[in-house]
């Protein structure tokens, strides 16, 4: 079964000068269970808008979104889906543990139960020692781990990510890729993410959807069958990266 399925989704925005701007046209997309799907494309191809439509933050103008086989409009289990943004968006007044607990608080979970879940996640993302640190006391990589932890604590079946590691140093980015792969496998989680980094897409995804801009349309869908972990320096990965670059 697909955890996310889009059928001919379209979206337009009204511009300031009153003209309609078509952002997405006729998008079909399928995220099978336990898969990792990357959306790649030049800026202006509506990648983030697409992700926001999947997350139910904005409604599509045309087409239908299915989540776990249910129409998005009838879908109620929104807490099984979390969203990781480009910026970590950690609240500066909360400690790491408190930031991670946010999703559980939103769901109204009692404090005692929250504690255990937060501890588990702190361990999962390797931040046990920084549970009581404030964001300004953490490095960029640790902040990114905290944000990942916040997205995991509600034990979602789908993780959406919008260029979550693009601001990190390359070596830390590689670490975060390993973490995402490990945790996605461990938690049997599906991941749908947006990136403009072709290598990131090839290293992480089983499926890459290439979008083209103005309006955003699906140009090509590529399946990547290479075994994990994928070394960016290996010839197979390099070849996929080359092919993907050509397609962009």
């Amino acid at each position, binding site marked *: 079964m697909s955890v996310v399925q889009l059928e001919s989704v379209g979206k337009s925005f009204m511009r300031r000068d009153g003209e309609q701007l078509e952002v997405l046209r006729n998008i079909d997309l399928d995220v099978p269970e336990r898969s990792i799907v990357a959306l790649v494309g030049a800026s202006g191809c509506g990648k983030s808008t697409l992700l926001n439509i999947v997350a139910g933050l904005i409604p599509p103008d045309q087409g239908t979104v299915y989540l776990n086989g249910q129409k998005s409009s009838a879908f109620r289990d929104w807490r099984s889906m979390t*969203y990781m943004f480009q910026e970590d*968006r950690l609240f*500066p007044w909360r400690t790491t543990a408190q930031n991670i607990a946010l999703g559980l608080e939103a769901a109204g979970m009692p404090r005692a139960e929250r504690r255990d879940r937060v501890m588990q996640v702190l361990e999962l993302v390797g931040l046990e020692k920084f549970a009581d640190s404030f964001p300004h006391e953490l490095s960029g990589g640790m902040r990114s781990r905290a944000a990942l932890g916040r997205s995991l604590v509600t034990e979602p079946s789908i993780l959406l990510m919008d260029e979550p590691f693009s601001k990190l140093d390359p070596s830390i980015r590689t670490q975060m890729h390993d973490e995402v792969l490990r945790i996605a496998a461990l938690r049997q989680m599906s991941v749908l993410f947006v990136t403009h980094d072709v290598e990131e897409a090839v290293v992480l995804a089983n499926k890459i959807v290439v979008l083209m801009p103005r309006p955003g349309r699906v140009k090509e869908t590529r399946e990547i069958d290479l075994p994990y972990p994928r070394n960016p320096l290996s010839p197979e990965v390099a070849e996929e990266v080359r092919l993907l670059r050509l397609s962009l």
Partner: protein
Amino acid sequence: MKRSPLQMTQDRRLRLIGLRLLLLIVVIGIWGIGSLGAPAFILPSPRRVFGVWTQLVITPGFWADFGITFYRIAMGFIFATVVGVVLGLLLGASRTLGDFFQPLLVVINTVSSSIWAIFALIWFGLSNWSTIFVVFMTAMPLILTNVWQGTSTVNRDFIELAQTFRMSRLQVLLKIYLPTILPQFFAGARLAFGFGARVSIVAEALGASSGIGYRLRQAADLVQTDQVFAWTLTLVILMIFIEAVLLKPLETRLFAWRKPRPA
């Protein structure tokens, strides 16, 4: 030998305390010298004021007056905080409401506290409510303005994040808006408390039959200048006490998350 940062902070602290003590001695010294050349009903000597003050503190009426003034300030301040925070959040949440009420706030801010005291006397007569009203009218616009401005600093990204977690409006208010405005609110509340406390004395002098302000006016009417000084001393001590024992530790505790400023 190199000093550790902790020692250096301690050194700075000691130096500051020393300077404060020196200042106190200088001020009292000048006051003392000045009082030598003036009659006691113009400028009583520090020794005399201190004597009157120690006498004053042991009279039972003193604590009653002290208590009633503190009660009025506290009541006015609490009302001002509740109304100021709620209105500030409301005006911050709705642009239309904000634009609509903004001129009113300007008008309220231009009316002097003494004028509010006169209105209070007309409306509430010689009662607790006169002083409470004046403290309220002085403190509330300050708190409101600070909270209102604080709402505009709320991070849109955090609101979007809250939406992905399907947080309720109340949760967004409590978990995002409130912590965001807290530093600004605190700054406003501190200012408001100081203004409110000072203006409460004027209000009591005009429209009360008890409290520190009333005693001050009584003493002035009877040309008991040493009493006036003693009551003033009481007020100063009260304000310093509240600042040092209540507000400063509270602020340090509430804003522990803030990035320490580079020295």
